[in-house]
């Protein structure tokens, strides 16, 4: 008995195959939580036909009961980042009811007063986390522990199971206190995800939050060296030693306080931009909404129906009316961002408004505490299959207008063919545009509703009508829409013969070539990032993905943030999305903005460059190399860096020939401590005069 699992399945060419597998993983669908109906009943909210929370297309976070919001998978199956955006959005929804007191209620955690560690010899506590078994099943933590015990200034070493567990953190904080430890080394997971947690721990222990270094034993050791336990253990010891070496030299961080400007710049006047502007305005902040085009609405202007039946044009009209009548919102049309400086809470931007007629523009300076990027995306129009050459070849967005405004064209058509996944030749990266399958299915149904006799063919590679949208696919099939799959190596062939479109496609299941006469050929073209993204990314110093969309701070955990504080992201500027998804994210952004601006003081950790005036030769190197034009030569004739503007990249300190500029947390001595630790070298604390020197 091998205990293999035998799987019998039918291959594409119809052959029945049987194959043996060691493991079979089933991707099962998600269903509402068992007690969802119960809860819904008690809250008085309605559920949809699948038992998930019922929502409306254009109000995706609102339950049927005013004042009750929904987020996450209770409203339908979805991805982590979406649930997080929705969570923030639902919070923003709730905030609307609390706007007069927004922010003042947020419970500031109570911390003991901070103990000064200046003048103290480093006393390092090393806590080695097994992360359940995630780390310990690869790395021999006992060896790490005994190695750590021999490192200089290490006063205490302990192995813990889950350092992220609140109780464990409390215990660690207690231990720090009890033993008078003044530096913390966590041999655990990635600082990217957990540093702030351990910083908080230090504050609980009455220490400055900066006195921690993390040895990334999980993400950068155990998880990636599964098959080399001995080498991984060796590396684990090194990483811990490197962390200890740097921790010994860490200094308390100063926090800079800014009184945030209570206003927001929203870039993009589509559905996303407008709804985030509204949500932000409802929180009590002023909004300047800039739109490149001459009118508001963006892509939504060209959307005439939704699969779910809601009327986008009606919604749009309402939205524009609300935005225009809101006295906290200033709308600027024909306007683009040309310059933006400053930092979270205190931005200063210049926008240019095209003056009609003369081709010139006027510039306006705007002060704002936060920025929202909601610049959308565009349907591409590649010159494929005759698009742009023959008016019988149109895009899915064109079809929206034809159905809504020229239904006679539909009614007179005998046959309409749609081709999915049409990507421009010059599109470097292949990606799924997510909305086009549903759009095709929706429009196919509309065609069938208008003209049941018209044949509709959808040539597709892969139909992705995810979530509840699957019902429309079923509906379309029921109405007789024919779906024909094609593959990348056998793309449909379109010819114009005697004024008629002839589409030839090879049906992989039948293995036969089908020739379809077509009165209208509809292409589902890929949704492209706006061409202005590159310029805007450079003005705002923001990263773009390889595809050219804006890149959020974290793929899963921070879907509406950029790494740069104070700048937020929503809608199709991020990647192609449905309207409801855009609106959820827009609401999420409003929550992020409120979190930043509702406080009287926004605090920023001073991971910034500082100049040692006694060493500065005023050589201007920093002035020349800073990508953000921050350093300047001050009245005393030496370089100066405004900590509120410094982005903390360290370019100036990397280049300064006098070593007069140091970047907090990346002092040379601190960085070099890590490489020296590799060779078992640890500087004597007294020898590093002021650490940065």
């Amino acid at each position, binding site marked *: 008995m091998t205990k293999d699992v035998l799987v019998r399945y039918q291959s594409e060419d119809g052959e029945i195959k049987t194959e043996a597998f060691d493991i079979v993983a089933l991707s099962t669908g998600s269903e509402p939580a068992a007690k969802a109906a119960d809860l819904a009943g008690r809250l008085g909210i309605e559920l949809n036909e699948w038992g998930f929370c019922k929502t409306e297309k254009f109000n995706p976070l609102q339950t049927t009961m005013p004042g009750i919001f929904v987020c996450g998978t209770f409203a339908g199956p979805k991805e982590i980042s979406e649930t997080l955006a929705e969570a923030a959005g639902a919070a923003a929804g709730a905030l609307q009811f609390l706007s007069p007191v927004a922010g003042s209620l947020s419970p500031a955690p109570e911390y003991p007063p901070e103990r000064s560690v200046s003048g103290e010899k480093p006393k390092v506590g090393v806590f080695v986390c097994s992360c359940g078994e995630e780390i310990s099943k690869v790395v021999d933590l006992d060896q790490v522990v005994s190695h750590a015990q021999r490192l200089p200034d290490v006063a205490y070493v302990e192995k813990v199971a889950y350092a992220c567990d609140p109780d464990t953190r409390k215990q660690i904080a207690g231990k720090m206190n009890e033993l008078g430890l003044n530096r913390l080394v966590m041999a655990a997971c*990635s*600082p*990217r*995800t957990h540093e702030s947690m351990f910083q908080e721990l230090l504050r609980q222990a009455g220490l400055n939050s900066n006195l921690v270094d993390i040895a*990334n034993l*999980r*993400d*950068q*050791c*155990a*998880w*990636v*060296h*599964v*098959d*080399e336990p001995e*080498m*991984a253990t*060796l*590396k684990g010891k*090194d*990483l811990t030693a*490197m962390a200890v070496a740097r921790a010994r030299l860490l200094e308390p961080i100063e926090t800079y306080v800014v009184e945030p400007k209570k206003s927001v710049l929203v870039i993009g006047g589509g559905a996303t931009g407008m709804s985030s502007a509204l949500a932000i305005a409802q929180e009590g902040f002023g909004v300047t909404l800039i739109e490149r085009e001459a009118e508001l609405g963006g892509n939504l202007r060209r959307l005439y129906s939704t699969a779910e039946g809601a009327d986008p044009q009606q919604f749009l009209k309402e939205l524009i009316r609300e935005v225009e009548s809101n006295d906290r919102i200033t709308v600027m049309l024909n306007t683009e961002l040309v310059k933006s400086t400053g930092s979270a809470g205190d931005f200063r931007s210049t926008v240019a408004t095209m003056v009609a007629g003369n081709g010139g523009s006027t510039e306006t300076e705007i002060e704002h505490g936060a920025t929202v990027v909601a610049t959308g995306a565009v349907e591409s129009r590649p010159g494929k299959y005759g698009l742009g050459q023959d008016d019988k070849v149109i895009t899915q967005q064109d079809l929206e207008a034809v159905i809504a405004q020229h239904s006679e064209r539909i009614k007179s058509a005998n046959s309409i063919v749609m081709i999915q996944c049409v990507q421009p030749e010059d599109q470097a990266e292949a990606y799924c545009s997510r909305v086009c399958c549903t759009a095709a299915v929706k429009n196919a149904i509309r065609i069938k509703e208008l003209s049941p006799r018209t044949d509709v063919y959808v040539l597709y590679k892969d139909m992705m009508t995810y979530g509840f949208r699957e019902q429309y696919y079923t509906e379309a099939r029921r109405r007789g829409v024919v779906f024909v799959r094609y593959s990348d190596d056998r793309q449909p062939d379109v010819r114009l013969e005697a004024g008629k479109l002839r589409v030839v496609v090879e049906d992989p299941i039948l293995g036969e070539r089908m020739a379809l006469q077509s009165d209208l050929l509809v292409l589902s073209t890929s949704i492209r990032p706006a061409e202005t993204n590159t310029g805007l990314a*450079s003005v705002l*110093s*923001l*990263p*773009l*993905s*390889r595809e050219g969309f804006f*890149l959020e701070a974290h*793929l899963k955990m921070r879907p509406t943030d950029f*790494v*740069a504080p104070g700048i937020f992201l929503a809608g199709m500027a991020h990647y192609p999305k449905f309207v409801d998804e855009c609106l959820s994210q827009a609401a999420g952004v409003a929550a992020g903005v409120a979190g930043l601006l509702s406080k009287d003081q926004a605090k920023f950790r001073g*991971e910034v460059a500082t100049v040692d005036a006694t060493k500065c030769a005023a050589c201007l190197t920093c002035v020349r*190399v800073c*990508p*953000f034009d921050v350093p300047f030569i001050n009245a005393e004739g030496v370089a100066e860096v405004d900590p509120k503007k410094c*982005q*903390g*990249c*360290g*370019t100036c*300190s*990397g*280049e300064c020939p006098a070593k007069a500029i140091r*970047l907090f*947390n*990346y002092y*040379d001595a601190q*960085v*070099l401590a*890590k*490489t*020296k630790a*590799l*060779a078992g*070298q640890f500087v004597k604390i007294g020898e590093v005069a002021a650490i940065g020197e």
Partner: protein
Amino acid sequence: MENEAEKSPNGYEPKVVAFACQYCAYSAADLAGPTGLQYPANVRLVKLPCTGKLDVLYILDAFENGADAVFIAGCLDGNCHHVEGPLRAKRRLVLANKILNELGIGADRLGMYQMSGGESIRFVEAAREMTDRARQLGPSPLNQRKSAANE
């Protein structure tokens, strides 16, 4: 793993130090595990806020302290959070390469890779390539001299 077999019989395991930008390469390295990727355990990352912070001294110090190979891992050109970090880093490598060649350590022990924060595969390729190179080149001549001196 394919590298396993190549691990040298005399027990030489190269030490590879990577200076990684926190926005891209450090994140790419973090994401390798969850994406099901593995790379040689010889690589130790030192996090930088940006490759613009890179100092030639860091590279020299890594070699002086026993690294057999060093690589810089930064953002893609035009996609740097701080605009031109990788461009600066590349300029600084010009000097570092010159020094390594003059010293006889060899600039081929120093590499530069660029990736976005999500491209763990690129990070893994970089880690493998530099580790393989360090294996092929053998221990850094500095380490050879040192061990010879100790014997």
